């Protein structure tokens, strides 16, 4: 009886200590591997058609897995501040070949691809290809035209094609009227701060993913700064016209009654007048770094 008990205790100890040892060792190995900075995102199979065949009847689930892998890949690179996102396109290519109705992969994937580094892969050409494929498989989903318009407008700066994308999307009876308005406005003006503000606001209001929402919010804040600076420069011009000299401090515009109070950026830091009396962001403002990064 006693021997039996000893055996059981010994077995229990071996199990507990063994598992604890494995756990500890794995943690140590993980740390070692992290130091190696291994690139572990290599895709063994790159042919979407082959993977589709190998998935048998379960291509939609495998497609969702590849999409999740793309999200994880993008998130991991973002977390490690790495800019090489060359596996992103093959992952999205496979995911959307396996499941051509995977709307999320087209919408978010095109944003991940088209955004300039460090936020995205800086690959708007593949973003356009992805959206084209999405529209071929889902011609009734007008939001893909909006995404296509955004890629042409913001990333490729190809305003005629951006206008065309909005125009095509506006033909869908479910598309809102602003798609037509955007098409006309971009066709007439090309890039403008008001258009940029509207497009980013639309992305911000409709995005469900926190990362996309945060990105849109950042762009909205940056466009707001540009709009503010443009307005302040107009007021500085007005001050110069009235007084015959350029204001050197923002307070002079307030004292002249051109501004009700000291104007501030979205973070609350007051704008300043820099060299040549041009309105600028405050040197202490966190927006300055964001603006420089997004130039």
């Amino acid at each position, binding site marked *: 009886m006693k021997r039996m008990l000893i055996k059981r205790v010994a077995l229990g100890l071996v199990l507990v200590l063994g598992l604890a040892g494995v756990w500890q060792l794995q943690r140590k190995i993980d740390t070692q591997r992290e130091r190696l900075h291994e690139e572990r995102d290599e895709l063994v199979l790159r042919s979407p058609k082959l993977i589709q*065949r190998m998935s*048998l*009847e*379960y*291509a*939609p*689930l495998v497609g*969702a897995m590849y*999409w*999740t892998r793309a*999200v*994880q890949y993008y998130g991991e690179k973002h977390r490690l501040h790495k800019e090489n996102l060359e596996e992103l396109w093959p992952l999205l290519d496979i995911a959307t070949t396996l*499941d*051509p*109705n*995977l*709307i*999320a992969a087209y*919408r*978010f994937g095109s944003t991940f691809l088209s955004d300039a580094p460090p936020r995205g892969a800086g690959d708007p050409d593949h973003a356009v290809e992805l959206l084209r494929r999405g529209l071929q498989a889902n011609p009734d989903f007008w939001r893909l035209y909006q995404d296509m318009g955004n890629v042409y407008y913001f990333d490729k700066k190809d305003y005629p094609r951006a206008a065309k994308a909005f125009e095509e999307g506006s033909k869908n009876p479910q598309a809102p009227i602003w798609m037509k308005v955007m098409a006309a406005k971009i066709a007439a003006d090309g890039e403008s701060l008001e258009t940029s503000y509207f497009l980013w606001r639309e992305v911000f209001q409709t995005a*469900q*993913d926190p*990362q996309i929402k945060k990105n849109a919010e950042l762009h909205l804040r940056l466009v707001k700064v540009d709009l503010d600076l443009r307005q302040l420069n107009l007021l500085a011009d007005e001050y110069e016209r009235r007084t015959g000299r350029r204001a050197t401090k923002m307070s002079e515009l307030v004292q002249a009654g051109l501004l009700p109070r000291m104007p501030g950026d979205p973070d609350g830091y007051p704008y300043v007048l820099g060299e040549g009396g041009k309105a600028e962001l405050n040197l202490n403002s966190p927006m300055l770094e964001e603006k420089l990064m997004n130039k």
Partner: protein
Amino acid sequence: MKNVWTVAANTFREAVRDRVLYNLVFFALLMMGAAILVGQISIGIEDSVIVSLGLTAISVIGLFIAVFIGVGLVSKEMDKRTLYALLAKPVERWEFLLGKFFGLVMTLTVNTAAMAVGLYLALWTVKHTLERSDAWVLVAVYLILLKLVLIVALALLFSCFTTPFLAILFTAGIYVAGVFAGALRTMQAVDISARPMTLLKGISYLLPNFENFNVMGAVAHGRGVPGALVGQATLYAVCYGAVVLAGAAAIFSRRNLK
């Protein structure tokens, strides 16, 4: 028909006794895990991945049951020598075979229905509501069940003339080939001369086309399935199943059981 029903009921009871339905616990855990995890590690596919994962699990678990238990339906009875006692009674061989077939189909129906309930629960956990389009999931589950019925018939056919190991290989092989039956027909773009092409086409029609029962992609994205397709797939399963079972009965009737 009474004999068929008696054998079927016994087969069902035996499957339950053999803890076949224990796979439901695995399915429940998988769905719960997916419902919790997916929303956190992916973007925009919470609903669709629950549906495609659930349908895949229903299909794969069902396939395993259909192949492994289907193949063992006859061979197990022969190994245990219970078949001889049974056939000594006024039971025809074809009645025994049909009874075994319907017994496993009953098991698969109960199993699939329970998993469908689990899938809806997981969907409700993720969405906090169920929409009208979610009803299409039931259609997909029904079509998966039809596919499983065909697999059981094939497994039964092969187990009538070969060893269980080879019967499993043949059934699995026919399943994989059946998934690509449609692709065989659309191989015209490849540079193949006319005669092999006609042969390939013929084979593609002979093989059970399992793509007929696959609506996972559409249903995962809330799209409907045409009623005509469901009706035709049902008829296809009935026709093909009847042919396979008739073949199995013919082979089994001639088999020397000594």
